[in-house]
Each structure stands twice: as structure tokens, then as C-alpha cells.
């Protein structure tokens, strides 16, 4: 029995090995597997981005793999990994389903939750599948792990930003505020998850070095009431309210901030404040909130010529603006793959990895290049140099890009009661 199974598995692995060549001959579609928590913003937005890119590419004839035009095909699977009751193991199983059952050639998108993305790295290594992480996971540990383990995790890429980069952007804004408006007191309220906590602690340290007075509050997921913290911030005379949360109750925080007319400017990373529907949902109470959408192009802006083209195409296909984090990066990931495959002239993962490493592409949110060591997208404040972040402020019901200056469309406004 044993011998037979060994034989069978040999044949099978041989078949798997030759599959890419076989499929070229038949011009089978290249399957892009997208493990996403599709019931959540970061999931469905990524799904739409991927599908839009695939439609565009297929309409233009597909991917040129060594002379043969092959179309892309999306296989989206719901990992549910943002739901608290679902173990990461389930998300990983979903990913294995993509790889083993749906025969995905490449993975784009998630898993969305940081720990799931980290856990998935070993899976990708095992199955030798290239993955471009585009949404959800913000943890710097991802890039660090790739850099530390060299060859082991070379199949993992991430084309969206991560916490330290985002922090640098915020620090730049805060430095300007300090310089122009003499702001020097910040109140930091973050959620108790690794990326938010890291963000909060990093921010506190960085601000202290610049002689800010800071206070850090960490809230467990599911906190419903922030009144005490908010009142405290008012008492301490904070001029900046720095938030980092991806839970729904955080919208309540902003409403309360507005009701209390606290003399502070809220900014940060807040899931609830990303979507265009946020304005209506809070009845305009969220005005002046500065939100980091992680990557440019997740809201209308003129970063590169492609940005508005993407936004328009998205609007045309889905009937609304890109809603938030994960849209533009997922869209770009497909184009990045197309470019890499065309240059590699094969879908063999090892060759495509090399192609991705040497990639230099002008994209929706700036110049797309991967760092060769960490496989993270190289960030910049200049779209001509690297990937640009999308920091917007809610102004009169619109999301207006306010940072970085080279891509900004408006200036930061202050609530009238701060004067």
C-alpha cells in the first residue's frame, strides 16, 4: 500500500511540475486566487479591485506569456478571517483550497488579518506560490520575516504600506502642525491589536523626541465608550487626537468628539472613517477627520495620470468610488503580476520572483518597486520615486487628499471651534 501511494504521489508531483508547460500549450487561464474576508471592507474592496484589473487586462487580450496570450481568471474565496469567532486555521484552509482545489497560480490579496497573513507565509513556502499581499495586514513583521529568512519566504511580496511607513507620514504632518500652528500636545487612542499598538507606541516615542506632550491609551477590541478618555484629552488640552482603530465603535468616538467640540484635530488610521458612506453614517460629524487610506488611489486623487483613470473605471464598473484601503493595491497587484509574468516569459514561480524583484512600473499610486530584501513596496512622498500614501481629510462630505504635498489637492482644515 505504502509503495503504491508513494508511486502515485510521484506521478502526481511530476504532473504538477509539468502543469505550467501543459497549460501554456492549452492556453489555459492564469488563475489568481484571492483569499479575502469578503464580508468586510478590506475584503470586498480588494475583490473589486482585482476583478476590475482582470477585466481590463483580459479585454486587452490577456497576458503575454512567452508569446502566448493567456487570460487571467479570479478565484475569490471567503476566509472570514476578520470575524472574531473564526480561527486563523480556517482562513488557512481556505487558502489551501485555492491552491490545491482551485489550482491558483498566484495569490493576490489576503489573508486580511495580520496573524493570518503571517501564518500563511509558511503555507506559501510549502506550496511555492507567489503571493502579493495587498490589504489588511499592516504589521512590519511581514517584511522583517522575509528579510531575516532570506530564501525561505521569497514568494511573499507586499505592495501596500505598513505601520512604520505610515507613521513616518503622520510624523511629517505633525511636524508641520508643530511648526505652523505651535501644536505640542497629542492624545493617542489605539486599539489593542498588534499593529495599532505598535503604531501608538511608535508615535508616542517619536513625538516625545520632538518635544510633544503625549498620552497613550490602549482600548480592547469592542470597547463601546471612550468618554473618559476623550474628556481627559480635553482636560489635558490636546490639540491632536491620534487614533488607530479598525473596530466599528470608533465611529462613536468621532461623533462624541464632535458633540463635545473638543479643541483637537483627529487623525489616524480608522477603518470606520474610510468609506464614502461614512459621511452619511455619522451625519457629518466626522468632518475634519484625517484618515490614512494606506495607499493612494483608494480615494479620488491626482497622484499619477493612472489614478483618476482607475477611479473612473472603478466607478463605472461598481457604481461607486473606491471605498478604502486595499482597492488600489489589489488592482495594482494584478498589473504587477502581468508585468512580471510577461518579462519572465513563464509562470514558473522562481523566475517570476526574480522578475518581480527587478520590477519598475508606474502605477496608480506612484512608482512600484519592491525592496529586494524585504519584498515590500518602496515608499516615497514623490510619486515619481515610489509608492505614495493616501492621507485624506474629510472636508464638506468629500475625501480630499492632503498628504504628501506632491500629491495633495487641498490643505488641512481645522474645525471652527478650535479657533
Amino acid at each position, binding site marked *: 500500500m505504502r509503495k503504491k501511494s508513494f508511486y502515485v504521489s510521484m506521478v502526481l508531483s511530476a504532473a504538477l511540475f509539468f502543469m505550467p508547460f501543459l497549460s501554456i500549450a492549452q492556453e489555459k487561464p492564469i488563475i489568481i486566487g484571492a483569499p479575502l474576508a469578503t464580508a468586510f471592507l478590506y475584503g470586498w474592496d480588494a475583490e473589486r479591485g482585482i476583478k476590475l484589473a482582470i477585466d481590463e487586462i483580459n479585454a486587452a487580450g490577456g497576458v503575454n506569456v512567452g508569446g502566448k496570450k493567456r487570460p487571467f481568471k479570479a478565484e475569490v474565496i471567503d476566509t472570514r478571517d476578520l470575524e472574531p469567532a473564526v480561527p486563523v486555521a480556517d482562513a488557512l484552509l481556505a487558502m489551501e483550497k485555492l491552491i490545491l482545489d482551485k489550482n491558483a497560480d498566484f495569490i493576490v490579496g489576503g489573508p486580511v488579518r495580520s496573524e*493570518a497573513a503571517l501564518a500563511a507565509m509558511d503555507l506559501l513556502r*510549502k506550496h511555492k506560490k507567489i503571493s502579493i499581499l495587498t490589504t489588511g495586514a499592516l504589521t512590519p513583521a511581514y517584511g522583517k*520575516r522575509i528579510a531575516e529568512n532570506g530564501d525561505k519566504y521569497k514568494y511573499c511580496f507586499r505592495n501596500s504600506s505598513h505601520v512604520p511607513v505610515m507613521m513616518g507620514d503622520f510624523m511629517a504632518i505633525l511636524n508641520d502642525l508643530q511648526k505652523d500652528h505651535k501644536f505640542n500636545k497629542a492624545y493617542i487612542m489605539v486599539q*489593542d491589536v498588534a499593529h495599532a499598538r505598535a503604531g501608538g507606541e511608535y508615535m508616542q516615542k517619536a513625538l516625545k523626541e520632538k518635544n510633544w506632550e503625549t498620552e497613550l491609551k490602549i482600548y480592547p477590541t469592542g470597547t463601546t465608550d471612550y468618554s473618559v478618555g476623550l474628556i481627559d484629552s480635553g482636560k489635558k488640552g490636546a490639540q491632536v487626537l491620534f487614533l488607530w482603530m479598525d473596530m466599528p465603535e470608533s465611529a462613536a468616538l468621532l461623533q462624541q468628539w464632535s458633540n463635545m467640540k473638543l479643541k483637537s484635530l483627529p487623525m489616524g488610521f480608522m477603518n470606520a472613517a474610510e468609506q464614502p458612506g461614512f459621511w452619511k453614517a455619522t451625519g457629518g460629524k466626522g468632518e475634519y477627520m484625517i484618515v490614512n487610506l494606506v495607499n493612494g488611489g483608494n480615494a479620488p486623487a491626482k497622484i499619477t495620470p493612472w489614478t483618476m483613470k482607475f477611479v473612473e473605471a472603478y466607478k463605472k464598473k461598481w457604481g461607486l468610488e473606491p471605498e478604502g484601503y486595499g482597492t488600489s493595491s489589489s488592482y495594482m497587484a494584478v498589473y504587477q503580476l502581468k508585468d512580471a509574468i510577461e518579462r519572465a516569459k513563464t509562470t514558473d514561480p522562481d523566475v517570476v520572483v526574480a522578475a518581480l524583484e527587478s520590477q519598475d512600473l508606474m502605477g496608480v499610486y506612484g512608482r512600484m518597486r519592491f525592496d529586494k530584501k524585504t519584498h515590500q513596496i518602496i515608499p516615497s512622498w514623490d510619486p515619481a520615486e515610489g509608492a505614495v500614501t493616501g492621507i485624506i481629510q474629510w472636508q464638506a462630505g468629500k475625501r480630499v487628499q492632503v498628504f504628501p504635498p506632491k500629491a495633495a489637492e487641498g490643505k488641512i482644515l481645522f474645525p471652527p471651534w478650535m479657533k
Partner: protein
Amino acid sequence: MMRKERIDRGVRVRTAGLYAIASWQEILYLVGPPLFLIVGAIILPILLEFAPYWKRVINIVCVYAIIALSFDFLANFVGLVCLGGAFFVGIGGYLSAIFNVYLHFPVYLSIPLATISGAVISTVLLMPALPLRGVYFAIVTLMYPLLATRVIEALNIMGGTNGIIGLDSLPNAYVEHYMVIIVMLIFLYGMRRFVNQDMGLVIRGVKDNDQAVRASGISVTKMKAFAVFVSSFMGCFAGAYIAHMYSWAGISLFALDFSIIPIASVVIGGGGTLLGAVLGSFILVPISELLRNFGTFRIVIYCVILTGFIVFKSEGIMVYAMRKYHQFERWVKV
């Protein structure tokens, strides 16, 4: 008035004692079903050679089956309804990760060590809850995994919300399959034997009438603690295994799914039979996999199945099947 009467089949009566087996049919009657299960479980990975994904699903099925066994034993033989099966899974997984990643023990050592030490730790932690009964025990055990999650999160220990990553995976797919399949079978038949041993009877006595057990000079708390040890032993193995299977341990090992799906399996398979727990997992988990394309709707479907079973067929499939196998029914006039 008509009444349904159930009568043991002749072959059942003859084979009830070991001495009366007369023919190969009777031997088959007796050993057929377990043989089918054992052989089936062992050749399943080979049968599914051409469906690599479903081979992975088998591992998960077995993991859920083991957790379900642990639940079934506690609930239907000891009378402790533990809604926090995930707690054992989490403890086992984290310990295994600590042994493997921090202390660099090899897989073959970290899994058994995590299983044993996890069982000890779980038992000690659950000790205070043992005097509770019924709903109270159920609710408190439901809170345990939640609390564990929150503590790890708040203290930012053991990798915080990112978890511990980079555990060694098992050497190859066959070790991975057969390890969990064989352990599951050992647990299943071991437990089935155990509950009919003298000590097993004492533990079952605790469920029927704990007062009488104490009046017999036996410490109920000790027996319950031992039962929790046995149960958490199984749960911790499941956790340690799943941690190594995915090279990762994190707070979502304490996730509610690890508590709920096994319970659903037991309800569907038939509580109090142990076999039912395994059967339930082998039915429920693949169904849920088949429904994966429906997204969250699959949860709705299996919740409806679960409610349906609780309400209309609370005995579960296994009890029903056993009755049909051992007895025949007829209508008699009363």
C-alpha cells in the same frame, strides 16, 4: 392503540456475550462496523490522492473529531457541559509553539509535551470551576477562552495578537495524516474502553448521581478533575497538532469555532456514544467545506441543520443507526 415495540435482533442477543459467537456472519456483525471505520479512516488519505485539498480537509475533520470526543466525554459521561473546548485547543497550541519555537524542541517532542503539560495546566485552571453545575459551568467555560484571548492581548505576551509563528511543520504529508488519524482512533477506542472500565463507571456515576458517589467515599472533585484532564488531554493534542500543521499559534486558537463546531458534531452524531462525535465531524465538516463557496451563508445552513437536529432528532445519527442495527421494530396492539 398501537405502540411501537423494539426487539433486539437475534444476532445481537447472541453476540452480546463474547461466548456465543457461532458463525462468520456473527463475527462480521460484531466487528464489521468498527473494522469499516478503522480501515476506512486509514485508507482515506490514499483514496483521496487525486483530491489534494480534501486530504487536507481530512486532517481538519480529525482535529474536530478529537475535540468533539473531548466534549462528548465531558458532557455525556461526566455531566460537565464545557462550551470552551477552544480553551484546550489554545493551551495546547500555544504550549507546543513555546516548546518548539522558544525552546527549540523537535516536533516529536513538542506535541506530546504540549499535550501532557497542556492537560495539566488546563485542569489546574479549570479546578475552581468544577464545583459549578449545569448552565453555570457551561457559561464559565465559555468565558475561559475569551479571557485567555483578552489576557494575551492585554499583556502583549507570547507574540501578542500576531501570535507565535514559524513552528516546524510535520516532516511530510503522510506523517501529518496518519498521526492525527491514528491518534483519533486511539482516543476513540481508548475512550470507549475506558468508560466501561471500573474507573470509567465511577466517572459516569458522577453524572448520574454525584451525591451517591460522594457518599461512597470518593472525592467527586478529584474524579471531575481527572475527567477534565482526560478531556483536555485530547483537546490539547488537537491544538498542538493544528499549531504544527499550520506552523503557527495565535489567539484565534481560542476562537469560538473550536468550541461550537465540535458541539454541533456531537449533537448531530449522537451524544454519549463517542462514535457519534467522530461520525458527526466526518459529516459536518465536509459539508461545511462544500458550502464554502456560499461565504457566510454556510454558517446559516449548518446552524439550521444543528437546530433541526436538536429539535427533531436529538438522539443523533449514531444512536439512531445503532438502534436500527441492533434492533428491529414492529407495531403491537396495546
